[in-house]
């Protein structure tokens, strides 16, 4: 454990590192670990680390996938794809070097949008990506509920962005959501809403600015 590491960089983890696994304490100990520490352990095929990460983020991944696909079954398929990929190819996260949540959400979004496009559902679904999520009849847990997962820091940041999002003018919020959850480019949004492209660009710019300011105020 404390021996001199061979200077082969991060790939070295694959074979040389052994994480101690005290019997019975695996999950309880790992729940305190950061996302990044858990990913390091997953690189070393630590199943318990995978379980902790799954429990920490499954609801968020599922919710984002549902927001895009508007369908419980498809959202579950996306959750499965995302986490299986996370287990099989954890090094793709290490290589990308961003924050874990950014990577996880990016993978989730792309996976769900692929599914959406494959099924040609973009324009057809009632209550899908282009609908308003709060109008859905399915049970929804709002941020006021006890946060089921993740760190206190992430919970605070989510709350800050949520507040900023709620205070956005409806058209700015809609532009952001059509881009991110609808997978539409600015030109597609402009066509969909029958608005000039410049108007859509401005809405997205202002929307992102306000979200950023809301997050900064929280910090």
């Amino acid at each position, binding site marked *: 454990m404390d021996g001199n590491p061979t200077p082969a960089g991060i790939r070295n983890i694959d074979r040389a590192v052994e994480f101690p696994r005290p019997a019975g304490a695996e999950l309880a100990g790992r729940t305190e670990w950061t996302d990044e520490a858990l990913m390091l352990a997953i690189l070393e095929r630590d199943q318990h680390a995978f379980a902790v990460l799954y429990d920490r983020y499954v609801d968020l991944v599922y919710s984002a996938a549902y927001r895009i696909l508007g369908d419980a079954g498809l959202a579950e398929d996306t959750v499965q794809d995302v986490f299986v990929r996370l287990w099989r190819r954890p090094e793709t996260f290490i290589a990308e070097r961003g*924050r874990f*949540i950014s990577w996880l959400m990016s993978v989730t979004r792309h996976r769900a949008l692929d599914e959406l496009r494959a099924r040609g559902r973009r324009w057809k679904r009632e209550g899908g990506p282009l609908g308003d999520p709060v109008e859905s009849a399915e049970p929804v847990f709002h941020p006021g509920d006890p946060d089921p997962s993740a760190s206190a820091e992430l919970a605070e*940041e989510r709350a800050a962005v949520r507040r900023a999002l709620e205070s956005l003018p409806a058209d700015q919020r809609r532009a952001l959501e059509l881009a991110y959850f609808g997978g539409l480019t600015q030109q597609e949004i402009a066509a969909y809403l029958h608005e000039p492209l410049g108007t859509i660009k401005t809405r997205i710019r202002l929307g992102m600015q306000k979200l950023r300011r809301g997050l900064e105020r929280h910090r």
Partner: protein
Amino acid sequence: MLGEHLTQEQADEYAIGSLEPELERAIALHLAECPACRDIVRDAERLAALLAVSQPVRRASPRLRQRVLTAAGIRKPGPAWRAFTIGRAAAGLAAIIVAAGAFSGMLGLRTQVNALRSQNADLQRQIDEALSQKVALAALTQKLEDQEAVAAELRETLKSDSELFIALISPSSQVAAVVSVDPSRGSIGRLVWDDDQKRVWFVASQLRQLPPGETYQLWVNSGGRYYSLGTFAPDDAGFARYETRLPEGITSYDTAVVTIERAGGSPTREGPAVFFVTDLSRLTRN
């Protein structure tokens, strides 16, 4: 398509996925080689991720857990996995009970993380070293080139010296003293006339610097006529070493003088003589 660094607006549009595919590709290419823009985009992607997780939260089905596990190829999750499904409260209690054991796990991980950090530091240091060695090598190469130039100059001088030496000891050479017209200064150099090599050397010291527009010019008198051997200038120390071929058709000289002429030299002797030549060989041969 993307000539410069990304604006905040472009980074935001990239992160939220609202760009047209061509621009998105151009930005991805730029990001591959621009750490500064990667930092901006990383922040924007964090914001986009927060947008994603700020949506109303839905609970995933508990059945989904086993399904994902199986799909991932994790067949035997072990008792701890099942124990954890009992509930978060129980897990929290377990966390307190086994804190000591867990701590050793964290310690191991920290050791690994620190080891990786120090590996990175080592690698950075090796790169720095390699770079500084490269710089040192370039300096050394330059020095070597400089020294080669000096060596070439020295070789040239050595060749010239050896030729002068051969002329000095040659029985067919005439060696004359160069004497100042100012009687208090006496001999300041030599004129070596070598019939074999068909060359003449003028070597003198204690020459004063001339003002711009003037030059020293060397003349030989043969058969009552002055022939120019060319102009020369002393170095900063007042030393001059001038060599040239014998003028065509002349095999000996009677006298030689150095005059001060206008810059570039005169076709015929005009200026005042400052040095004259006394033929030493005539003295020594006697």
